């Protein structure tokens, strides 16, 4: 599975959304994720990809694509 597919699976599970809703362009806001949903999502991503996403970086992640790019750049 590629990074996007893994991220998508985590987003679907954590936020309880349909996988068709999750594209690279999808914003977390449009998935009705509040700040703490995003923290939980970040935790799941950190654990899946074995990396640390500091809070100031996490704040910049607006879309699924942002998250995928951050993971690819920091793995």
């Amino acid at each position, binding site marked *: 599975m590629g990074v996007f597919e893994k991220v998508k699976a985590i987003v679907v599970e954590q936020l309880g959304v349909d996988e068709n809703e999750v594209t690279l362009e999808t914003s977390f806001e449009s998935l009705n994720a*509040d*700040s*703490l949903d995003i*923290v*939980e999502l970040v*935790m799941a991503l950190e654990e899946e990809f074995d990396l640390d996403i500091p809070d100031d970086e*996490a704040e910049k992640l607006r879309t699924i694509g942002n998250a995928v790019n951050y993971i690819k750049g920091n793995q």
Partner: protein
Amino acid sequence: MSRVGIVGLGSYVPEDILTNKDFEKMVDTTDSWITARTGIKERRKAREGVPVSELCYQAARQALEDAGILPQEVELVIVASVTPDYAFPATACLVADRLGISKAAAFDLEAGCSGFIYAAVTASQFIAAGMYRTALVIGGETLSKITNWQDRGTCVLFGDGAGAAVLQPVEDGYGFLGMELGADGSGGDLLIQPAGGSSIPATTASVQANLHTIRMAGREVFKFAVRVIEESVQSLLSKCDLRLEDIDLFLFHQANQRIIEAAARRLELDQEKVFVNLERYGNTSAASIPLALDEAVQQKRIRDGDILMMVGFGAGLTWGAIACKWGGKGNKDDQNENL
């Protein structure tokens, strides 16, 4: 080594209530925002001139009565708080004096919101070692006195209250089955009252800069809390040779409903087994676990023979957990030994 357990409980919260609606008038927030992100609906606030020792005294008096213990039988008093009456003398000394406990060892312990767990574990070691037979452990806070009322992110979270427990040797098989404590000072700045200690002593400038109030990096603390609950539960289960399903009730530090839910989800816990009362008290730091414990016992959510797991986490960063089999009060062998 004797087995140590809780033989009496008491709790006290001030009368004055601050609701989410009250905060709508103070800062830019709404009831629905606070409820969705914290689960908190109201919290208690001690009046001006009411120090934490007063709350601790009220809780402790009830705990002694519940245990059927006279003040003079208490040999050790520990108060856990981040809001003591004074930098010194220790609040424990003041509370002991008010209760009529004379000459008992008394000291304060500061381990943030893990304070009650730290204090209960500490007291249990004195009893297990045979140095003392009866200890009074109190978690009390008046966080309203160090809250930044302009910071909408934190001011809605905290509340005042106190909870107390009497610890004594208990029957074999009951009491504390396992405990653990831990700390990671690298996260010290994530949850801090910056001024008032020796780092930044109180000055006109420190007061003007509002440095005597609570600062919290909420998201970082959230991550720490969720992970440390999961890790502490797993580690204590394996230490005690227990399975998740053996635990009848979990009492986590009542910081935020979302932390408790996230941790419960990770552990795949049945919501019925997770005690929550933060909607009425907010985060009362060191007071939250004994407040929850006392309420759970009053509501008969805990019965003799039940196995509980309590997990605290907070400033330090610190964490601590106790697995406890409820009941077993009145260890007769031990009493005979002491005659």
